[in-house]
């Protein structure tokens, strides 16, 4: 039997058992979808924790609705206790960053898209890929468990600074912090296994004709993200292990009594932490690029500069970490080097923004739900990026560090940026994943509600920050200078609740369409990508025969063509393969 015939036979007769097909699957598509359900669940968890934070900030000292259900030690009389509040902010950040956004951007889209978009039948190491997902279960489980143990969960901020985090006596948190550390180490392993796969797959398994500079930007972004992860996550793992040892076996890495250095924790953490934020935004940029080119029916403006910009961002991202530490009492000379590098990193990001705008300029724009979300990504990312420039300047950061200005920035880039891109990606690839269309109408309703309430929630935080409201504080009204700002806090809280409620529209659309959605065709968005040349959803093994790639990724509205898009597999004669 020839390799081709064998291949077709294999694709047709998928005789895996139920467990092998849907539970312990090595198929990258199944794994991607598993990550999707897992991370949407944790998005919900993170969101609920945020509601708790907002309740306390908006209505300090008042009993929370349903607060009576919480144990008295956590919320006496239904009122969030101060230590509980610290746990809320810590766990909100932790769940959102590690268990929602990272898995959504990387676990879902890297897994699902990479093999399809490069023309491979699966990842380089499918079994390792399966492990990468299943390790998230103990990791997530331990993190959830930490919420319920005696002493409560970690309450030192998602950045768990030492010595607060290293010395149980300071925070009153014992097991919770240890579970946090253990969970993160396992998460790190999951992330590394995934990244090894993504890198090796892109390097070695591209279909014939899929050269590096014909890769879609989503693949470039995910590849570069994986490189960032390989280099940065192990530092986190090392640091967290040292922290865990400080808490458990009496080591002194971060405790000053016998020469440990709390500041070293900050350096190690942020050496990971800064590349981490680029891990959180690069895939979003890649996804947005693909969707914007598709929605504008135009090639991405400046494709190669987009690639070089991402590489520059990745590299520079490793030498800016000190800008998180300007207020730490760090060496001022060192601080100024970080100021320079941080200001420089704005340049490649700006190049990308201009290229998106250049793509849209004179495009034939289709305002579909994915496109709307992608456009929101660009505009909100601009705002988030602009606030970042303020922070880059050390003298300015001295004033705004640790205030709500930073919180505003974070949420503009993470929600306004990453999450809108996630929504865009889900709406866009849902038909490919599930073979069904989501409702366009309800997608647009969800978008509109989310966009409005999101801005009303987070924009005022810039004002709070400039007004001096600090982060992570339990009750702003105890400070005279903050009391005049309290109406803003109330305003934010109300909009935050409405933002949360708006997500029900998305949930209903997502779940409902799984069962009732219109059946999707092979290429509903008329996209050039390789994944749209195969069925929705693709069979096990992805392609009946190896695709051959003849074009760049964004051949839209090519002059002289009948159709306004040219799939990458169309041979140069222009006739269908």
């Amino acid at each position, binding site marked *: 039997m020839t*390799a*081709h015939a*064998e*291949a077709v036979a*294999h*694709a047709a007769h998928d005789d895996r058992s139920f467990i092998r097909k849907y539970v312990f699957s090595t198929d990258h598509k199944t794994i991607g979808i598993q990550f999707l359900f897992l991370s949407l669940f944790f998005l919900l968890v993170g969101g609920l924790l945020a509601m708790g934070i907002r309740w306390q900030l908006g209505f300090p000292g008042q009993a929370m609705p349903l607060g009576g259900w919480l144990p008295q030690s956590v919320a006496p009389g239904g009122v969030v206790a101060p230590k509980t509040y610290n746990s809320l902010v810590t766990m909100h950040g932790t769940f959102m960053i590690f268990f929602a956004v990272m898995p959504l951007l990387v676990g879902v889209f890297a897994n699902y898209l990479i093999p399809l978009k490069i*023309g*491979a*039948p699966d990842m*380089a*190491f*499918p*079994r*390792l890929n399966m492990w990468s997902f299943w390790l998230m279960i103990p990791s997530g489980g331990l993190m959830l468990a930490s919420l319920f143990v005696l002493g409560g969960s970690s309450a030192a901020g998602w950045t768990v600074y030492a010595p607060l985090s290293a010395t149980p006596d300071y925070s009153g948190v014992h097991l919770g912090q240890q579970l946090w550390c253990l969970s993160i180490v396992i998460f790190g392993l999951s992330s*590394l296994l995934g*990244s*090894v*796969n993504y*890198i*090796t797959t892109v*390097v*070695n*398994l*591209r*279909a*014939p004709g*899929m*050269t590096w500079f014909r890769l879609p930007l989503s693949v470039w972004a995910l590849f570069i993200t994986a490189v960032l992860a*390989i*280099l*940065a*996550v*192990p*530092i986190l*793992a*090392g*640091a967290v*292990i*040292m922290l865990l*040892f400080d808490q458990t*076996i*009496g*080591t*002194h*890495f971060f405790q000053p009594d*016998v*020469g*440990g*250095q709390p500041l*070293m924790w900050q350096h*190690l953490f942020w050496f990971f932490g800064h590349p981490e934020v680029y891990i959180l935004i690069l895939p979003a940029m890649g996804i947005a690029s693909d969707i914007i080119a598709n929605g504008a029916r135009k090639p991405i403006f400046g494709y190669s500069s987009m690639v070089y910009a991402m590489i520059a961002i990745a590299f520079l991202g490793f030498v800016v970490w000190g800008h998180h530490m300007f207020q730490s009492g760090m060496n001022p000379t060192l601080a100024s080097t970080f100021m320079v590098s941080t200001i420089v990193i704005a340049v490649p990001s700006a190049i990308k923004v201009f290229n998106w705008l250049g793509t849209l300029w004179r495009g034939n724009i289709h305002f579909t739900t994915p496109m709307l979300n992608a456009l929101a990504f660009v505009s909100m990312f601009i705002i988030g990026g602009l606030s970042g420039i303020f922070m880059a300047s050390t003298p300015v950061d001295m004033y705004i560090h640790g205030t709500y200005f930073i919180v505003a920035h974070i949420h503009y880039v993470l929600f306004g940026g990453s999450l809108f891109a996630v929504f865009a990606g889900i709406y866009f690839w849902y038909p490919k994943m599930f073979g069904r269309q989501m409702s366009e109408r309800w997608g647009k309703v969800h978008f509109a509600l989310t966009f409005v309430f999101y801005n009303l929630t987070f924009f005022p935080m810039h004002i709070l920050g400039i007004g001096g409201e600090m982060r992570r504080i339990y009750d702003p009204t105890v400070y005279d200078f903050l009391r005049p700002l309290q109406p803003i806090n109330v305003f934010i809280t109300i909009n935050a609740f409405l933002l949360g409620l708006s997500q029900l529209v998305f949930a209903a659309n997502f779940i409902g369409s799984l069962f009732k959605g219109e059946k999707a065709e092979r290429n509903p968005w008329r996209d050039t990508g390789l994944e749209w040349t195969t069925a929705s959803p693709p069979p096990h*093994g*992805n*392609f*009946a*025969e*190896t*695709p*051959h*790639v003849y074009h760049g990724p964004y051949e839209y509205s090519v002059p002289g063509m009948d159709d306004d898009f040219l799939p990458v597999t169309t041979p140069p004669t222009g006739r269908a393969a």
Partner: protein
Amino acid sequence: MTAHAAAPSVGHAAPAQGGVGVYTQKVGMWVFLVSEVMFFTALIGSYIILRWGTGAQWPDPRTVLAIPITALNTFILICSSVSMVKAYAAATRDDQAGLKKWLLLTVLGGATFVSVQAYEYHHLIEKGFLPSSGVFGSAFYTMTGFHGFHVTCGVISMIWVTVRAFRGRYAGGNYRGVETIGLYWHFVDLVWIILFTIVYLI
């Protein structure tokens, strides 16, 4: 190995677009080793920072640690690296007898290293030198402990590879699995070369 079973079951009758020019398992192992370099950077880097960056109290390692036996242990690990590369060479030549012999010697070398380390730990703990013994104790046990953990994982993997070798899985010039585990093994040796110098000698 796994990659053969799972990879190109469909397509790729045509050659894939040129990658880095190295087979997939090797690329994967090197990428993994890059992450390991960063992991040990965190640990060893912290040692360097704490010892020479901060002016902390630091005993002369030679007064605490046993150099001679550890030097011998270093030599043993280096020998196991040699036997590993000999095993690889045998596999490329389809010398099955040689492969099996050298793999067994590698397992022996690795297991000896770990045992000597364990014995050293026991000895140090008895002397009262613990992870809680100042920053030096903290860093020493963490670094050498994780290195030892990596060697142990290596020994276990090596045993598995040896079993497969005895079952003829690397016959007919099918050397890739041996080379891949070999890379991990040499890496663990390399880290020790650096650790030994920085922690014990300097």
